[in-house]
């Protein structure tokens, strides 16, 4: 299948959905560039599926607009939107063969049989299911079924590919290979795509940009690296990966950095544009943290705080050391097991000095 060259951009403007008295999606405004893949990520019930279904035309927005390629399609019925959609349960037509499933969208477009056949064959070849054309969906594995659904969705050369937890029903290994496969096909065909997931790894792996949703609103939008390394809020920092949070008060300013006195003891430097705050919450990723024995001198570029080891959990690649700070807050370090079980040198109850590069300090909103 050739790259259609028809990639279109998508814009959501003030998109809102109210069910009864509950505002499930709240003024979502978002631009998605042609050929871009965006993942909507958030906890259960935050409105991801509802947002996706409004884009698909399966749910009517209470307010706001959906624009594809600059055209308002908010009032266009779903079957005229030229959208390919993948469902968590695959939604293959059980009474039709694999080939008939893939041909369905082309038939609905009134395409001649002679034209449909080669398109179906190449779509199935693209998902490596050329030999399965005559089977019924029930005779395929979950992964194969979702690949058929993918072929069925892209064969119509959709303006938009929508995926609602497409891999949620697959086991972990298969999920990872399907993530790569779907992503490759999406990039090769240059289709604009919106994916819903509550699996953060999936979002980080597959998407050009990640949209964190919370209670129907956009919490943060950015590339996977931005979201991970510069979360704006405590919510985002703890939703994407794991994070430690340190409370502190601003003691002074040092260039574009704030000097912060930690509640748990110790002083750290924090990058910050706004210096007006006196209280601050700092996010520190557990993999950035190293442990020293009390008494070993920390280097000047390091931040640190004293802590008491509580529990040590061996996890293969890493060892998780769970600690408690002097102000009672939990703190965790993921120590790499590069040279065997490093963390074994520490023991529960031991007082340690947790330290990390000052660049790993990131201020977040306490919400």
């Amino acid at each position, binding site marked *: 299948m050739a790259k259609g060259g028809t990639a279109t951009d998508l814009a959501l403007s003030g998109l809102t959905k109210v069910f009864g008295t509950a505002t499930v999606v709240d003024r979502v405004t978002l631009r998605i560039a042609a050929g871009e893949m965006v993942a909507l990520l958030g906890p259960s019930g935050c409105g991801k599926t509802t947002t996706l279904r409004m884009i698909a035309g399966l749910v009517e927005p209470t307010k706001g607009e959906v624009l594809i390629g600059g055209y308002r399609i908010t009032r266009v019925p779903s*079957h005229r939107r030229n959208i390919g959609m993948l469902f968590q349960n695959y939604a293959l037509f059980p009474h039709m063969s694999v080939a008939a499933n893939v041909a369905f969208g082309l038939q609905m477009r009134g395409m001649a049989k002679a034209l449909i056949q080669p398109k179906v064959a190449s779509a199935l070849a693209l998902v490596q299911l050329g030999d399965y054309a005559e089977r019924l969906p029930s005779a395929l594995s979950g992964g194969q079924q979702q690949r058929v659904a993918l072929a069925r969705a892209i064969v*119509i050369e959709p303006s938009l590919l929508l995926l609602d937890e497409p891999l949620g029903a697959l086991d972990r290994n298969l999920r990872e290979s399907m993530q790569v496969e779907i992503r490759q096909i999406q990039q090769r065909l240059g289709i604009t795509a919106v994916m819903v997931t509550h699996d953060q790894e999936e979002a980080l792996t597959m998407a050009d940009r990640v949209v964190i949703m919370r209670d129907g609103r956009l919490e943060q939008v950015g590339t996977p690296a931005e979201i991970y390394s510069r979360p704006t809020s405590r919510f985002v920092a703890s939703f994407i990966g794991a994070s430690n949070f340190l409370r502190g008060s601003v003691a002074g300013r040092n260039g574009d950095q704030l000097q912060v006195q930690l509640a748990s003891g110790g002083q750290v430097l924090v990058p910050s544009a706004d210096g007006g705050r006196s209280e601050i919450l700092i996010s520190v990723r557990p993999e950035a943290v190293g442990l020293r024995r009390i008494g070993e001198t920390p280097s000047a570029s390091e931040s640190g705080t004293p802590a008491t080891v509580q529990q040590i959990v061996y996890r293969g690649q890493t060892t998780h050391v769970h600690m408690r700070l002097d102000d009672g807050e939990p703190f965790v370090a993921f120590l790499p097991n590069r040279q065997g079980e490093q963390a074994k040198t520490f023991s529960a109850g031991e007082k340690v000095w947790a330290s990390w590069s000052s660049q790993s300090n990131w201020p977040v909103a306490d919400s």
Partner: protein
Amino acid sequence: MAGRLSGGGGAAVYTMAAATLVFVAAPLAVVVALSFSEGALATFPPVGFTTAWYEAVIANEEFQNAFMVSVLLALAATATSFALGVPAAYALDRWPVPGARMIEAALLSPFILPILITGLALLQFLAAMKMRDAAVNLFIGHVLVTLPYLVRTVTASLKQVDRSLEEAATTLGAAPWQVFWRVTVPQIVPGIAAGCLFAFMVSFDDFPISFWLGDAETMPLPIFLHSSMSKVFDPSITAMSSLMILTGILAVIGLEKLVGLRRAMSV
């Protein structure tokens, strides 16, 4: 699908199934056995073997007439219930029809109301409307009692339809009517078939409605059977009964061939 039942619950289920078989099938077997009896009266046990009763019954014009009335009536009632019941069930399940619950309850009410009373009420109503044609009256009465079966089975299978299939079809460009024919209908065919079978058998078997609405010319088989029986109780009665049983079995086999009984009954 059919897991083996074990333990006390299993034993109870097997016992109940066996009891049902004995009480339903055994009397029917007696009827069939008697229909081949050479005796002059339909009394158990049968004596000898003859097909003379069948020959007599099949040659009997009154029987032929009653059988035709019943078959045509059942087919007409089933077809009409199908034509009315499928759209009604679909609309009730999928569209925001005001008072949908009330309408559904009304459509299903013949299930609950005593049919004998329904028939009597209908007779008085039709008489008041000056409708004298027994064939038309029977048709109306039978549709009344067969329609609920279609509404019920089709509604039940619509509730089981995987809505994401319909949504997938929609996003692929299918207009609502195309979604209905290409995706919804294939999924509810078993329910429709089961509903039609029930409707056919209920009509073919109906006594309480036909009792009020039939007349001497348009007399469905169960009424004919009953009136013959009050004249003489010879094995021709059991031969007629056996032919009715056979019709029922043929309908079930037909359904099995068409859609598979297991699928049809799993509504």
